[in-house]
């Protein structure tokens, strides 16, 4: 609605280096505006230096580092275990998947194998985290679009339900610090599975409600379709991962590619978009949530009894052999990887987080050029960043 530009067909040849629109024939002076670090819709302390020609963006430079908390440096000065709670605070919406990625990398480094039940618990908590993340993202995206809190409130209502599950499992709402090398910290408390089943069952209803509220809303359609188009070849070259990549139509889901954990046992599909615009990114997330619900239903049905920790795992005095490992998972925001180098001491020699949020921002300027200021915030919203992970 309200829009005349047809969707740009993805160009076959991308330009690798970032480009800036020239102000050739345009009239009026340029206006340099800083959006952020304190700005209602930069999702934290992100800053974009935007050059505007009227309302059009002719240049956009992201500025990072306002939340650079030295996670990697701190981790290199402390033990492997002590970094686990710090990973919670990387992408603070999805602590479980962060835990998982780190645990997976350390398990690769030290040769540990979590038992089956632990793998199931990881999948359950991981997919719940995906639900939380995507729900919040959609809420925040609508907030950026100017909906007065209602979608965000509904999103957080559902989030609270899952946080309740996390709290009764791990003790904390957000910072679960739940996974351990070779397994999980505690077993599921009594009644947890039933509670989780109830939550998952009601989730489809919530998704229906949400779609009714928004998906067909003309304003949303008009605001998102054809905005922030990301062609697939640029997406691949710029290392975009996660829903954003799949919205551009590239079939790459690490759950399918690496089959880490026990993802090969579950039946689920990977939704792909054809346009790579904001609307596709929004819809891909909604569709992914429906797939997550499917995975959760299977996992909650099949979870076996048994131990939850690899008996070889040590809590104190954990010293992996000299070497290095890179482990990665399909986080809700994209590929979340940890690269670890061990020198045989209790502390990692090099500890590196591969932050999907940061790398997905590589193409922010390419997507925003020529769009309006109002589009910039929703394009940023559709990228789905969390500053804790962008700046670490």
């Amino acid at each position, binding site marked *: 609605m309200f829009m005349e530009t047809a969707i740009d067909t993805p160009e076959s040849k991308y330009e*690798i280096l970032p480009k800036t629109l020239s102000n050739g024939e345009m009239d009026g002076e340029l206006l340099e505006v800083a959006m952020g670090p304190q700005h209602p819709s930069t999702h934290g302390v992100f800053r974009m230096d935007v050059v505007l020609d009227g309302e059009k963006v002719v240049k956009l430079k992201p500025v*990072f*580092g306002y939340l650079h908390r030295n996670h990697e440096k701190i981790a290199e000065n402390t033990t492997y275990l002590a970094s686990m709670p710090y990973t919670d605070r990387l992408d603070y919406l999805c602590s479980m998947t962060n835990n998982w990625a780190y645990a997976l990398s350390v398990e690769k480094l030290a*040769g540990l194998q979590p038992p089956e039940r632990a793998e199931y618990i990881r999948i359950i908590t991981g997919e719940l985290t995906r639900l939380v993340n995507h729900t919040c993202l959609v809420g925040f995206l609508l907030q950026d679009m100017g909906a007065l809190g209602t979608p965000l409130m509904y999103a957080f209502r559902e989030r609270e339900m899952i946080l309740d599950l996390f709290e009764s499992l791990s003790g904390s709402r957000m910072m679960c610090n739940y996974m351990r090398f070779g397994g999980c910290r505690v077993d599921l408390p009594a009644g947890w599975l039933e509670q989780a089943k109830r939550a998952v069952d009601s989730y489809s209803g919530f998704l229906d409600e949400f779609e009714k509220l928004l998906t067909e809303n003309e304003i949303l359609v008009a605001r998102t379709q054809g905005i922030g188009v990301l062609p697939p070849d640029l997406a*691949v070259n710029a*290392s975009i991962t996660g829903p954003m990549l799949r919205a551009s139509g590239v079939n790459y889901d690490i759950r399918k590619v690496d089959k880490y954990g026990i993802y090969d046992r579950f039946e689920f599909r990977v939704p792909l978009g054809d346009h790579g615009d904001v609307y596709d990114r929004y819809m891909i997330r909604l569709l992914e949530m429906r797939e997550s619900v499917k995975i959760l239903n299977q996992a909650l049905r099949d979870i076996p009894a048994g131990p939850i920790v690899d008996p070889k795992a040590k809590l104190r005095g954990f010293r992996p052999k000299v070497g290095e490992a890179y482990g*990665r998972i399909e986080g809700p925001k994209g590929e979340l990887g940890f690269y670890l180098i061990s020198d045989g001491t209790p502390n990692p020699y090099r500890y*590196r987080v591969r932050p999907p949020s940061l790398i997905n921002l*590589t193409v922010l300027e390419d997507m925003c050029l020529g769009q309006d200021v109002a589009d910039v915030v929703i394009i940023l919203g559709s990228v789905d960043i969390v500053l804790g992970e962008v700046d670490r």
Partner: protein
Amino acid sequence: MVMETLEQIKARIENAISGAKPEIIPNESPSAQRSLLLDPAHAVEVAKFLRDDSQLRLDYCSNVTGVDWLDLIIKEKVKVKKVVEGVEKEVEEPVERKRPGYLEAVYHLYSMALKHGPLIIRLRTENRADKNHVPSLTPVWRGAEFQEREIYDLYGIIFDGHPDLRRILMWEGFADHPMRKDYVEPDDYEYEPTPHDEVLEKTKQHHSPEPKP
């Protein structure tokens, strides 16, 4: 799809690009992720080969990171033939060898087209002080743009050919490269109510706040 072994890749690189001498870096840990060390002179060419080769098609540069290796004194025992009391014997003798430090950029490559990986390539600077240049691979993989900037910021590796090499996380005007192993932190947390001895010890080496002019 299974990727070729590192040896095969190495041989094909050597065939395709004359002068390139990739070196396989072993990895003893259970992960067994070995890597290829590229020489800076041919790195961009090799990278393009890796990206465009039809069997590899490593079109996706997942992770780029820096590593700081300090000067290291390696103590080894070397067997030396010596004449001891008139008899030639093989004697083990401790030898100290200084390995100069260097900075390293590590790239993890995957293929989205063929769904395989990782191939890990490494680039090394000559030393940690002045000869800290390596070629930038951003023109090959745009995804390396911010990560190389980050390495420049935190480790001080200068990537030649990077389109926009500025500090990314710290502010302009910051003097140090804080992720280096020998970085000295500013003196500002000795007031914590629960200071530990090592913390107090550490604060003594800190930069003191610079005197006001």
